[in-house]
Every structure is written in structure tokens, then in C-alpha cells.
């Protein structure tokens, strides 16, 4: 059996092919890993977004409750000692003549 001696060029081509294969496989693995990591990040962001949106909804509802007329009137009367003006205390300006 005669063993054919490989030329330097053939060895270089073989090495290059192997290197390319390794690079492609490495890139593929990196891509998969990166995709998964991005998936985690997106999932986390979506949860955060949902949570923030819910937070906004809750705050708006809380604001409405704090500004409810029942509460505002109670604070005005009981804490600030305000009362409604008597009819003679109210002056209506002539709006039509105002510039």
C-alpha cells in the first residue's frame, strides 16, 4: 500500500475547512444562546411593562378615589373648616363685558 504524502496546500485546506466548521458551529451555539438570553430579557421586559401598566391603572384609580367629591367635601368641612358661602356673599361679575 502506498501512502500518498499530503501537500502543505492540502493540509492547509483541511485545517481551514475544520476551522470553518468549528467557527460555524460556535456561531450557531452562540446564536442559540443569545436567542435564549434575549428571550429571557424580552419576557422580563414584558412582565415589567405589564406590571408598570397595572401600576398606572392602580394609581389612576387611587387618584380618583382620593379626589372623590365625598372626600374632598369632608376634608374641606372638617379639616379646613370651610363652609358654603351665603347667597349675599356671592358676586357674579358681568362676564359679557369682560374683554
Amino acid at each position, binding site marked *: *500500500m502506498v501512502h500518498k504524502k499530503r501537500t502543505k496546500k492540502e493540509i492547509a485546506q483541511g485545517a481551514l475547512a475544520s476551522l470553518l466548521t468549528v467557527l460555524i458551529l460556535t456561531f450557531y451555539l452562540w446564536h442559540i444562546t443569545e436567542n435564549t438570553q434575549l*428571550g*429571557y430579557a424580552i*419576557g422580563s421586559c414584558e412582565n415589567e411593562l405589564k406590571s408598570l401598566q397595572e401600576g398606572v391603572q392602580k394609581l*389612576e384609580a387611587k387618584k*380618583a378615589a382620593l379626589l*372623590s367629591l365625598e372626600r374632598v367635601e369632608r376634608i374641606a368641612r372638617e379639616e379646613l373648616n370651610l363652609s358654603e358661602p351665603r347667597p349675599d356673599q356671592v358676586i*357674579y361679575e358681568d362676564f359679557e363685558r369682560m374683554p
Partner: protein
Amino acid sequence: MNFASDLYQKRTSKRTRILALVLALWVFGIFFRLIDLQVFRHARLRGQVLKQNQDITKILPTRGTIYDRNGKILARSIPVPSVFFSPPAEEPAELEMQTIRKVEKILGLGAKDLDRIKARLQKKSSFTWIKRKTEAPSAEQIKALGLNGIGSLDEPKRFYPQGTLAAHVLGGVDIDDKGLSGIELAYDEILRGKEGESLILRDVKRRGYYSEVLKAPENGKDITLTIDETIQYISEKELEKAVVENKAHWGTVIISQPATGEILAMASVPTFNPNAYPPPSPQDDINRAIRYNFEPGSTFKIVTASAALENRRVRLSDLFDCSEGLIDVAGSPIRDHQKFGLLTFPEVVIHSSNVGMIQVGQRIGQDALWRTVQAFGFGRKTGIDLPAEESGILPNWGKRTLPALSIGYEISVTALQILQAMNIIANRGALVPPRIVRAVQGSPLNPSRNTGAAAPAISEKTAEQLIQILERVVVEGTGQSAWTSGYAIAGKTGTTQKYDPELKAYSSAKHIASFVGFAPIEKPMISMIVVLDEPQKAQHYGGQVAAPVFRDIAGRVLRYTHVWPQKNLEKAVVAAKLWRDGQR
């Protein structure tokens, strides 16, 4: 050297071939295994993997928010924690109950709750709600305990930030946020939306690394009501005060914008807090404005008067003899609250004379009065966007029906129907049906209703004549307590004796007091009806009990809507002007 070298090469070559063979077998082994896994066992393995690491979860739609006409939140769904138990291992129910009892106090569980949970655990349920829609701090406290099998999930809960405000209009929902009454029921399908589905892929630690919406949820649509939060608040406060002061059984106030039919406020007392729905007493849940039929009494005289003028059966100068103070109707007398003498047609309305109005009714006749009653929409629902509206009850004609109907008896109506009748007069004859929903998701609902192209129930001339008479009711007649300084108001009082089924007769002790009117006369901004059931104090007439409520609400509401009082509209001045006009 050559021999040794050849021998070395042969040995190397042999080892290389063996190594190559082993590697090739290894590669083929992997290759065939891959084919086995990816082709032959693909479907089964995929199913197993997906079962392990994927969740298909329901995406709950957010129930639409309900706003008032100015964009103030009246009802909104917000996420709150619901605490559940999912047994980590199969254990006897008694042992599992020991875990549950550790959260009993935090969640305020009662004997009923514990019995329900125990029954579920005895059935070996894999998931049991301990308490749904609880407070966030309680859920945090339980989480801190780190109890095995106990967790919490967020669920939307309906929240009414204004508490009892507009409770009967808004209605309430059940534990699953399904509408049970009011707008919540009438617009449940629109508010609820539709569930969606999502696929979530999870790793071994159950962290989601991929999610895909399989079916997008359709969130419920927002609804904007015609109700004005401030006007509603004023109405409720004044009504509550009147019901307490007069020791009435119940009361209702409706305020509308005559030109559009938009309801600005609809209040009923007793009321309830929709945050704790259903109310303890079912009576509190009744929206008296649309769900209670009653005989209207003298407020109905606006219909009789309209029929008389429209059909030209009376002239304004016609005189009616009311000097006896009573009139015989099919063998039994109907009385006035005082003897009036001779009254002109306007004076019959102004002083709300039963004797005079029965004579007017007899001139009108059954057919003409019946036509007007129907033209005003009595006997059928107004079509307001609220559930369980009553249509009223029309009379079965008998000997007494014509005189009785002329003064508002033998017919049952809702407060809203009487307000609709007054709106016809305020709109100079046009019937504009009432409505309470302004827009769905920002799009106006039935915009055609805003055009003002409404069916005429009576002529403009009849309406104008009646308005002048109704203004005098407030200036010099039974409705003087409704006079609001600086504003031209038209209105009519009503006092109904209630029928007592035990006595089988009208009771002299039980009344319904009412007042219906609108202001300002020239360009009506608001119309309002006030009804109080069985005021217990000595005063029980509509003019004494309901008209002052109208005055107190109307003054505040008109100023709030920037309708300022006019200086020249003092009562004496208006009375003199009306007297002078009457002389012409």
C-alpha cells in the same frame, strides 16, 4: 532504515485506520440516534418535552373602564392577589388543613370558607382558592411565611373609586367580574372583552424564555356615561338630606339635558356601595328612577293640559267652577285641598285643582286624552340604556278612568317617564328619548340622537302656552318652594295618595310627593324630577317636600353649568310681568 521506516508507516497506517473506523462508527451511531430521535420518535418526544416545559395560559382581558361625561373614573378593574392552595404532595386533608389554618387570621377566613376548602381538599383537588381578590398586604404577609403549596395569582377586581356615587347607574359585578346590574349588566358583553391564549416555553427553573400569543385577547371597551360626577354628587347629597329630614321611605332624583335627552344625574335612596356588591338588602339595589311604578298624581296634569290645548278643547280664558271644592265622580267625591271659586284654565294648573282638571278632562274626552298619553310615551319603556326598566301600567277604561286619569290616577308611571313628558314641553313639543351612555371606546353612541331631529308629541304653540302656565306654578302657584332666585323655572308639583291594598282604598296617611320642572325657560339647560315616598312629617305635599329639593339642587347645578342668575329675575318682578301678560 527504509525497512524500519516502512514498518513504522504500516503500523501507523493501521492504527489510523482503526481510529478512523472507531470514529466513523461513533459518528454513524450519533447519526442513527439523531434519526431515531428526530424522525421515528419525534412526535412522541416533542409531546413529552412540550408538556414539561410549555404552558398554554389564558390571557384575561381587562374589563373596560366606565367614565363620567368629563372623563372621571367611575369604575375600573385593577389586579389584586387571590390566594390559592395547590398540594405539593399527596397528604391527608386534615394535614393540609393545618397549613390552611396558618393563614386563617391573615385572610379573615370564616367557618363557611374553611368548610368549603376542606370539602375541596377531601375531593383531592389539585387547586383550591383560599380567598379570592384579597388585599395586597395580606398576600405579601402570606408569601413571607413561605408555606408549601400556598401561593397567589393576580386577578382583576372591579373598583369603584367614588364609593356609593351613581351606584344604581353603575350596578355591580360578581366575583368573576360579570355584570349583575346597572350599566355593568346592560353593557356586560362590551365591557368584558374576550379571553386570549398564550404559549410560554419554560426552562428547568420554570423561567419563561419564549412566549407567543396564540390568540390575542380583546380587552373590554371603555364606556363614557352622560352622567356628570359633580351633578350626581349634588343630587345624591340633597336627596339623602331630604329623605332623612322628611323620614321618607325612599326618594329619587333624575336630572337631564332636555335637548339631548342625556341624563346628567340619577340618584336613588336608599343606596349601596358597589365595591361590596350585592348589597345586604335587595331593596337598596332597586333603581327607583326606572324600576318603580307609581301613580303620578298632579304632575300628570301637564299631560291633561297638553291634551286640552293641543285638541283646542279649552281656551286660556275659559272658567271652571271649583267653588264646591269637590266633584262627584261615579258616585264618589274627588276633592281639592281648598275651595278655589272660579278658576281660569291656567289657574286650574297653577293651583293644581283636581275639580277644575277633571272638568278639563271631561271636555277632552277619552280618545283625545288617550292619544296624548300615548304620544308622551306612557305605557312603554323610554329605552334608556339600563336594565330592568319598567314600562308603567296604562288604565283599563272604566267609569272613573277619564276623571281619574285627568288628575294622574289609575295610571302608573316611572319617574323617568314623567321627566320625559316634562322634556317634551321643555323641547317645545319634541320627544327626545333619555339616554345614559354617551360613547363606547370614544365613539359616540347613537349620534343621530344628538341632532335634535326628534318626533313632535305636541305642537310648539301648545308647549309655549304650557310653559307660561308652568312658570306661574313656580311664581305664584303650588310650586313656589321651587323658586330659585335669578332663574326662570317652569314646573309642576304632584302629591299622590297611595293605594292601600289592606284598606282597598286610597290612604290619607301615605303619599308620594313629587316635583318636575326645568330651567332656564328660554333655553332649558336642565330638567329635573324629585320624588319622595311617604314623607312622615306633617308636610307631605309635593310643593312642600319635593319642590325645595328641586330648588336646592337646581341653583347649585345651574351655577356649576355656568348658567348665571339674572339680576332682573326677582320673584316680585317676574310675578308682575306674568300678571301683566295675563291681562293682555
